[in-house]
């Protein structure tokens, strides 16, 4: 591997801004000063790595990993994809963590009071580590839409939260996955913190009939892109990205 430089600057017009008043909680939780720009130092170009030994055999199976008396209730789905960097290279060994509500839109969390029922066989957390080609996969239940106290009648689209560790702390990312064709994507104040439709589309998983397990589970494909890294092509040799 050639000597590598810092990670590409984040495009903060592609990401959501800090202050997005339609998402009310952001109003008092957004910094007012500009961020201090800092080309990566080694403090940001390193990061924790999690071995495959971290992961148990059911950690990526949300239908079974909290099951007490049977499988979780709801639409059985596979969520799979690759973790890539901006150079379109796979990111192997990435820790992918996810969490979600159950089929009725109810989270298993002590501060959650929505009246939809808890599923006794569904916890809602999963994790995986990408393989040598950057691939991950989960088996889960498609989450339901969920009302929340923002506007008087705001509902979140069906979504799965994703947390990613790449190879550097500079790549640390938390995001949300939405489902192709859901009309609620386009009326959500959290989705609309992202101003570019193409960026929202990047968070929308597509139905993949070819990856579906017949008579068992539908499949959605969701690729995730982390920051890419410069090659120091003029200091060393012309290898490029």
């Amino acid at each position, binding site marked *: 591997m050639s000597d590598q430089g810092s990670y*590409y600057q*984040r495009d*903060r017009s*592609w*990401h*959501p801004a*800090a202050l997005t008043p339609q998402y009310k909680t*952001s109003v*008092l*939780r*957004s*910094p*007012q*000063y500009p*961020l*201090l720009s*800092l080309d990566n*130092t*080694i*403090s*940001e*170009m*390193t*990061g*924790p*790595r*999690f071995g495959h030994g971290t992961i*148990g055999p*059911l*950690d990526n199976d949300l239908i079974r990993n*909290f099951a007490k008396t049977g499988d979780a209730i709801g639409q059985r789905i596979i969520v799979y994809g690759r973790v890539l960097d*901006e150079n*379109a290279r796979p990111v192997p060994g990435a820790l992918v963590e*996810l*969490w979600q509500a159950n089929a009725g839109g109810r*989270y298993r*969390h*002590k*501060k959650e009071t929505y009246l939809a029922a808890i599923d006794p066989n569904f*916890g*809602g*957390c*999963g*994790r995986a580590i990408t393989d040598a080609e950057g691939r991950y996969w989960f088996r889960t239940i498609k989450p339901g839409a969920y009302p929340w106290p923002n506007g008087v009648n705001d509902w979140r689209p069906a979504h799965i*939260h994703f*947390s990613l560790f790449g*190879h550097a*702390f500079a790549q*640390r*990312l*938390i*995001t*949300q996955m939405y489902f192709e064709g859901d009309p609620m994507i386009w009326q959500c104040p*959290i*989705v609309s*913190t992202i101003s570019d439709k*193409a960026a929202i589309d*990047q*968070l929308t998983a597509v139905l993949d009939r070819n990856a579906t397990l017949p008579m068992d589970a539908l499949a959605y494909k969701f690729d995730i*892109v982390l920051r890419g890294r410069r090659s120091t092509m003029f200091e060393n040799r012309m290898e490029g990205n």
Partner: protein
Amino acid sequence: MFQKLTTLKESPSQTAGPYVHIGATPNWVEITGVWDEDLGLVLVGPDTKGERIIVKGRVFDGSGNVIKDALIEIWQADADGLYNSPEEKRGKADPNFVGWGRQPTDGTTGEYRFETIKPGRVPYKDGRLMAPHITVWVVARGINIGLHTRLYFGDEEAANAECPVLARIEHKFRLPTLIAARSEENGMPTYTFDIRLQGENETVFFDI
């Protein structure tokens, strides 16, 4: 039509939301039996080299209210200033220190707390030493993209004065927002690092 670059766009961030604990610290919200223990709770063991310290603090919103649903992650070098990462090319870090930790802010008091070690100094890009520091990352409901900051140590005045990163803060009155004051708690050196997201004494956040 111009040629197109072949690079991809980074996946855009979204808020971690109020239930981030389900994925990050499930045992802490009583989702038990899925994995044995939550990742990142313990940084030090009996064989870890370095001075044991406590790092604690709270996160405040723009009205001065304490945020009780935040998640804090830290990343730091070992006692000799080496990172436990395959990207670390300067030497082999202490194998008994991962250097990464994760804690929720307490649902009642809003306090976060890590037991860790004081990191050694690591070099800036040009070889000058930065002052000892811990990288801190904050996510919560209402935060659309995770906030990066750095904790520096109040008892490292000489090192802080020559740190090339701290020197980049143009408005010097903001510099103390990155300095954690040292105190003692049950005989342990304790550094308090409060994070103010907005308004008076707003913490310096980095675009790294």
